[in-house]
């Protein structure tokens, strides 16, 4: 009963003073609750990022709303994404946390995924790079990479490690895909066991689990995935600036940057996926006051010493992206030529049987 009357009171308040409140970012979220949908289970990378942001965001948004993170899991994130697409209002009271690979799935239009990047606006994102290593006994010197023959590469969900797949594709390495791994952790163990010849890991697990193998001499660092700028020039990963990126390694062997469709696709995937490994989205048709208030909250949050101190490990040394910094994400999304995306869809469909809607 109490719940009902409170709800009625809120409703009445909303009707009587509605317009004035709804237009003003300073009051839009006053005494409200923001729900953050996390489409993956507790404890994973996306969940940790989403909960970390949720923990601090509320106190920085004007009006100090309560922010509650909720895991809506199932079907590899589709359940949560589809709920955000179909079952919640675009009023800014519900946000969506995605991984970089989830963003790519939305971007490419994975079958059964009903949420589209066209309907979303990023409010904050955290980047995360990846590094590839190879069994030490397979190559003596970097030039040998080009000669490798049918090396084993573990595959989880193919879209989930697309930047690693496109790196070997763009390099022109012949590989044998071994399916059935649950996550990158499993492929790492299989790599340590010697069953897999090559592995690509996020920077933190690379530093903690693969570096010791490199030091003991059983593995060699091959390349960092890294980033590319608007002109396609390699940009090193800020967390591992000493490791050359894939295109740099290619250039040192062949004297020029890679070319071709796999290389074009690689640039799209590497930049989109790695810049947005954790992204908090809001519907882009939410009221302007709501979106403005959220951006104001993020801008204030990233100045908070406590927030930064608590996030040192969650962010793994990468700088959080917000406000104008998110332009890089938008640039990749806007500038990706449709034929490159088509090629990427065809590649994932033909090689791995992944289905897309368009």
């Amino acid at each position, binding site marked *: 009963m109490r719940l009902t009357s409170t709800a009625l009171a809120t409703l009445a308040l909303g009707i009587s003073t509605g317009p004035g409140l709804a237009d003003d970012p300073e009051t839009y979220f006053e005494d409200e609750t923001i729900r953050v949908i996390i489409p993956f289970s507790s404890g994973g990378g996306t*969940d*940790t990022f989403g909960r970390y942001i949720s923990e601090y965001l509320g106190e920085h948004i004007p009006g100090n709303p309560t922010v509650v993170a909720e895991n809506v899991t199932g079907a590899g994130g589709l359940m949560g994404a589809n709920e955000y697409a179909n079952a919640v209002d675009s009023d800014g009271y519900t946000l969506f946390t995605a991984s970089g690979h989830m963003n790519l799935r939305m971007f490419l239009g994975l079958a059964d995924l009903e949420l589209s990047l066209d309907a979303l606006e990023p409010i904050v994102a955290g980047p995360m790079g990846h590094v590839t290593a190879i069994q030490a006994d397979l190559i003596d010197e970097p030039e040998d990479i080009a000669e490798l023959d049918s090396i084993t590469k573990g595959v989880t*969900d193919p879209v989930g490690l697309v930047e690693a797949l496109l790196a070997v594709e763009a390099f022109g390495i012949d590989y044998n895909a071994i399916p059935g791994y649950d996550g990158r952790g499993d492929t790492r163990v299989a790599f340590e066991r010697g069953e897999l010849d090559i592995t690509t890991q996020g920077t933190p697990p690379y530093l*903690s689990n693969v570096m010791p193998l490199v030091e003991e001499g059983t593995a060699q660092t091959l390349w960092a995935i890294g980033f590319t700028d608007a002109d396609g020039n390699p940009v090193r990963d800020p967390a591992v600036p000493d490791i050359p990126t894939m295109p740099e390694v290619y250039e040192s062997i062949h004297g020029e940057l890679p070319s071709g469709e796999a290389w074009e696709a690689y640039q799209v995937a590497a930049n989109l996926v790695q810049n947005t490994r954790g992204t908090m989205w809001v519907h882009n048709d939410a009221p302007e006051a709501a979106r403005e208030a959220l951006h104001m909250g993020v801008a204030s949050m990233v100045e908070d010493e406590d927030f930064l101190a608590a996030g040192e490990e969650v962010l793994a040394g990468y700088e959080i992206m917000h406000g104008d910094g998110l332009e890089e994400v938008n640039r990749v999304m806007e500038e990706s030529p449709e034929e490159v995306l088509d090629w990427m869809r065809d590649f994932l469909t033909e090689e791995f*049987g*992944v289905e897309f809607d368009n």
Partner: protein
Amino acid sequence: MIEAMIEALFILLDPYRLSMLFLGVIIGIGVGILPGLGGLMGMALLLPFLFGMDTYAGIALLVGVLAAVPSADTFPSVLMGIPGSSGSQATIMDGYPMTRKGQAARALSAAFLASMIGGLIGAVALSAVLPFARPIVLAFGAPELFMLTVLGLCVVGVLSGNRPLKGLVAAMAGLLVGAVGGAPVAPEYRYTFGSLYLFDGFSLVIVALGLFALPEIIDLLARGGSIARRADKGAAGTGWWDGIRDTMSHKWLVVRHSLFGVFLGFLPGVGSTITDWLNYGYVVQTSRDKENFGKGDVRGVIAPEAANNSREGGALIPTLLFGVPGNSAMALFLGAMLIFGLQPGPQLVARDLDLLFVIVWSLAIGNVLGTALCLVLSRPIAMLSYVPFVYVAPFVLLIVILGAYQESRHMADLVALLSFGVLGWFMKRSGMPRPPFLIGFILSGLAERYLWQAYSIYGWAWLMHWMVIVIAVIAVVLVVSGVMLKGSAQGKPQRPGKEDAP
């Protein structure tokens, strides 16, 4: 090493951290007792509170949950024949028949003492083996893990008792139902009929609750009265001490299964459910007088209970060394470690030795606290089995439904629960054993995945790996000896009351 160990003890003895450990144990007991909720749920509840918390206190809190759940989940398994969590399914086999005979207190105290010893062995093993564990974990590749799933399937023979054909059919049906959802080695979906809910396949919690809990509730209500038969009530008062004595007199059994539990916990990809059933199969197969198994043999309680507590110590090894979680609760633990900025991996062992020992001490102390609390509680809680079931049923039903629903919070969870409940009831009525169904269900995806990986990496050469051959021999011995023993048992007169066996 010893220095770090003592230092870690003092780190943990700080009143705040100790109280967090205690809180973790209490929460672990709470979620363990409630059917369907397990360590995963307990840790998920705590995760949001970890940001900004003292690292050692947070770790103690989580390990407290981990240590207490495999003890507390024994209550519903023994008292009502309902799996308390995925790690206590085999306990039902003999624990529940003991309750029906009025020996609930005995079964519980035996289970908890075995759990306590198992948990301590697990903690010791964790600290002793961790420095050398890497090569052992790495020795188990896809072919070896596939053979372990085959071994698991062979246990079906043991669990089917004198109904091997029905057991086989149940196991096959389990394999089939386990194939629903995303295929393990290809991006395709099987038997999902376009429903997103089925993309992940059925949840183990829902299948287990449906198969075991609903049929039991229905039958108990239909029969009327209490769970334990009144006629045997005389035995209840002394039961508690009997259980303690049972476990003491089977101390080597406890040690053996604790070590087996640690070993299985070691291997990433071997979940708590398989650990439980493999241990049960192991104790039945190696006991000379096995006619009482399934009808209330206390050894059938002691063996899986010792193993499911010790396995937590073992399961921490791949989690800490490789950053690969052995199960979903461990995945959460891993997530929590990342919140504290602890990257699991070989250097964790070298660099953060004090943290490692804080985990070991938390596991040991949490385990003793948890089992001691359960031991104290077991006497009054065992009295529940004498309460007329009509008073208990609504509460149990509510908890079971909540347990199923919290898995993914979709309405379809309830439909799935009901469907498996109906299936379980028909199986129970027609004398078709349900554990083989469960084992087939769990191993379906794993067997397919490891077989495919073994073949794509090694071709047919995987068949010649020495460990593959060893496990194959064990599996053959298990099946053949089972058949031969059964053959000799056929000569004896059939025992009555088999329809009560789960």
